[in-house]
């Protein structure tokens, strides 16, 4: 190619690209939600003189342009590929890939947050739980199993547990670190897979003195494919999806879930949620401040208050063999002060605090 043709090619390709992209972006309708990123996309900002003269209009417009850019997901994949495989960096957006498994860097340990979490639990005990059998357990995140082996930084789990054991009073610790492995978690999501945690439920029930183990029940395993976990879209690479598995039987199917805020009665599994923004919401319809599961197969039995995060949604149905009622409290969405309005703490129950390590490491979100 001679220089003149080269100049024509350079000019044409550049002008075509920038003009073509401009027209495509103008023509393409705006999207409200990104399923791959699980978030609302920025819309066109409302013009105001204040926004203009504060210099914020430019910032808001840029967010809008980037969020609504044509082929956004494709471009994000290109960037992820470039960062990880061309520039050889170890992570993209704090996510890393090991053999088709996606992991999120969760480090360093925030000791102040761990102390805050311990204080939160102690305060709850002093306020409402005195005289009850109270337990706490920490669910390790996937980094616990992989990070050190693959040369990635991870939080100091030993130090986290050391602080919790030292600070938390009146509660018994149930160790879950030793009964989990990386295979119990989804590859593209941070959660564990319900069909792999029956033995975890067994351990919890056994330590809480429940008579019937989870493994004593007969379950039917059902699967839904494809399951694109929360990390899948964040990473932006075409990693093969997971297969979501859930366990069901007559006990679980007949259990009734009462939502204290919505004042509705539902089933344990909300199948329609699989096709919404977070498929993991099929378990108890996702993040809800306060739920009660009534186990109709076990009347007059023990009751459990489960203070939990999203991991609790999938293990709660497996704890039903031990309890006639499980009250699920998510302190990320309901404050401690409001609990007495909804829960009768004068009644003696078992109490379990079940949080994942990342939540303990960012415990400021617990109200």
């Amino acid at each position, binding site marked *: *190619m001679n220089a003149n043709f080269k100049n024509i*090619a350079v000019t044409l390709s550049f*002008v075509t690209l920038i003009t073509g992209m401009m027209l495509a972006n103008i023509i393409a309708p705006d999207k409200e939600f990104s399923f791959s990123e699980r978030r609302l996309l920025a819309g066109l900002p409302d013009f105001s003189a204040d926004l203009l003269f504060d210099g914020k209009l430019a910032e808001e417009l840029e967010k809008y*342009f*980037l969020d609504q850019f044509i082929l956004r997901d494709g*471009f994000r994949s*290109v*960037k992820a590929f470039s960062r990880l495989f061309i520039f050889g960096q*170890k992570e993209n957006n704090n996510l890393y890939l090991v053999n088709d498994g996606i992991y999120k860097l969760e480090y360093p*340990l925030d000791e102040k947050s761990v102390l805050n979490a311990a204080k939160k639990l102690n305060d709850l005990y002093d306020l409402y739980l005195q005289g009850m059998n109270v337990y706490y357990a920490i669910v390790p995140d996937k980094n616990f199993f992989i990070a050190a082996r693959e040369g990635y930084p991870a939080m100091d789990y030993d130090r986290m547990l050391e602080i919790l054991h030292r600070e938390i009073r009146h509660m018994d610790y149930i160790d879950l670190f030793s009964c989990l492995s990386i295979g119990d978690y989804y590859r593209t999501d941070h959660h564990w897979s319900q069909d792999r945690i029956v033995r975890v439920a067994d351990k919890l029930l056994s330590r809480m003195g429940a008579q019937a183990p989870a493994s004593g029940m007969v379950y039917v395993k059902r699967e839904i494919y494809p399951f694109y976990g929360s990390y899948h879209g964040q990473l932006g690479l075409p990693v093969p999806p997971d297969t979501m598995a859930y366990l069901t039987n007559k006990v679980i199917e007949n259990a009734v879930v009462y939502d204290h805020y919505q004042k509705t009665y539902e089933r344990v599994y909300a199948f329609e949620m699989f096709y919404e923004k977070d498929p993991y919401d099929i378990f108890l319809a996702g993040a809800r401040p306060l739920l009660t599961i009534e186990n109709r197969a076990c009347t007059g039995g023990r009751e459990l208050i489960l203070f939990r995060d999203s991991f609790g949604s999938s293990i709660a149905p497996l704890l039903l063999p031990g309890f006639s009622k499980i009250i699920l409290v998510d302190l990320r969405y309901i404050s401690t002060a409001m609990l007495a309005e909804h829960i009768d703490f004068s009644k003696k129950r078992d109490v379990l605090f079940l949080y994942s390590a990342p939540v303990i490491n960012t415990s400021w979100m617990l109200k």
Partner: protein
Amino acid sequence: MVFSSAAFLYFFLPVVLGLYFAAPDRWKNLILLLASLFFYCYGEPAYCPLLLVSSFLGYLHGIWIGKTRGTRCARIALISSIVTITGLLVFFKYTNFFIKNLNIIAHTKLPLLKIALPLGISFYSFQILSYTIDLYRGRAGVQRSFLNFATYVAMFPQLIAGPIVRYTTVEKELARRSHTLEGFARGVSRFVTGLSKKVLIANTLGELGDIFTRLEQPTVLFCWLTVFAFMLQIYFDFSGYSDMAIGLGRIFGFHFPENFNYPYISRSITEFWRRWHISLSSWFRDYVYIPMGGNRVPAMAWMRNIFIVWFLVGFWHGAAWNYIIWGLFFAVFLILEKCFIKRLLGRLPSFFAHLYALFFLTLSFAIFNAEGPGQGMAHILGMFGFRDVPLASAETIYYLKSYLYVFLVAVIGATPLPAAMIKKIRSRETGEKIINLLEPAANTGLLLLSTAYLIDGSFNPFLYFRF
């Protein structure tokens, strides 16, 4: 607006190019001016009047100097232009610095002014002064068209981050310039190269600075890593932006001066400042240092001149003591090199000269990058293990491994090696054809890749923005 943004690349630029090249020649400066004002107002509408007022003041002073040339009044006009334009710069950029320091020294509690630093004021003020000073010296002609003068001052390719384009450089092109396919293509390639340097390299290396502030345990190795990363980040950020400015200028028919010439291959601090931010150092040389007598004065006066100029160079970079210290740091070395270091280095293999220059440049950028002199000194102490930090850690090794290839690409890119290799390939007919074939594809690929990084990232302002 910044060049490395979706708004600029995929809305502003195609529209402006379309309007500019569709318009007849007599309208081109007007379109460029209106586009430049829109570009400026998009990010900083409040200070757009200041830009126009400064341009108008420069224009009026030019007329005044032109009318009184050869008389004492011309000198008064020149002094008036310097005082006015510098006065505006000092007011907006340095008033709060003086108030803060007065409060410390005199134990007063004067309130700070609620003014933001107008975008690009340090650049366009110096451009205006280059016009009035060169006009006074008889090196430039009077610009009678305010439209043309304002176009020169406000031209968006170099408005907010340089290079500092002297009026004499573009005087003829303001009146008449040619637009060729070759010029357009060269401009595009230069622009895309600059965009890639900024988005792919500089922004990535900038992450290490953020990571340092969140480290569980700082280490000696990470202190060095952060400074090296910053040195490369600021080079690729600033030279990338200069490439984009020069490329855009070329597209519009202007030939802007080079601003960087592989500064990190320097063998002395003196050489570094001939290769780094050339438009700034040469501005101070020609408009401050030489009028003060330069080096044609007795030794003590010369040293005084060096200290004053480098105080000003440091101060130009920011209204903070670490920038002043940074400038004076170079003054000391420039004097020492002139007196004896250069002779000493001349006797050693050039490897040692490179090492000497890089070492002290590293220390200087540790000062530059800090939030204040104390933090800069603390970082330097950390680099030499004086802060009770371990040599390395697993965390440090992780980040070194993660950013290793980016570092390698940056280090090689900061040398003349890639350009020399392309030149060598081009020297053969087959090589020339291959490069001609690859260049459009490479431009497109880099533009798309840079766009991908922008989309996945967030708003990323250029480092030298607030000058």
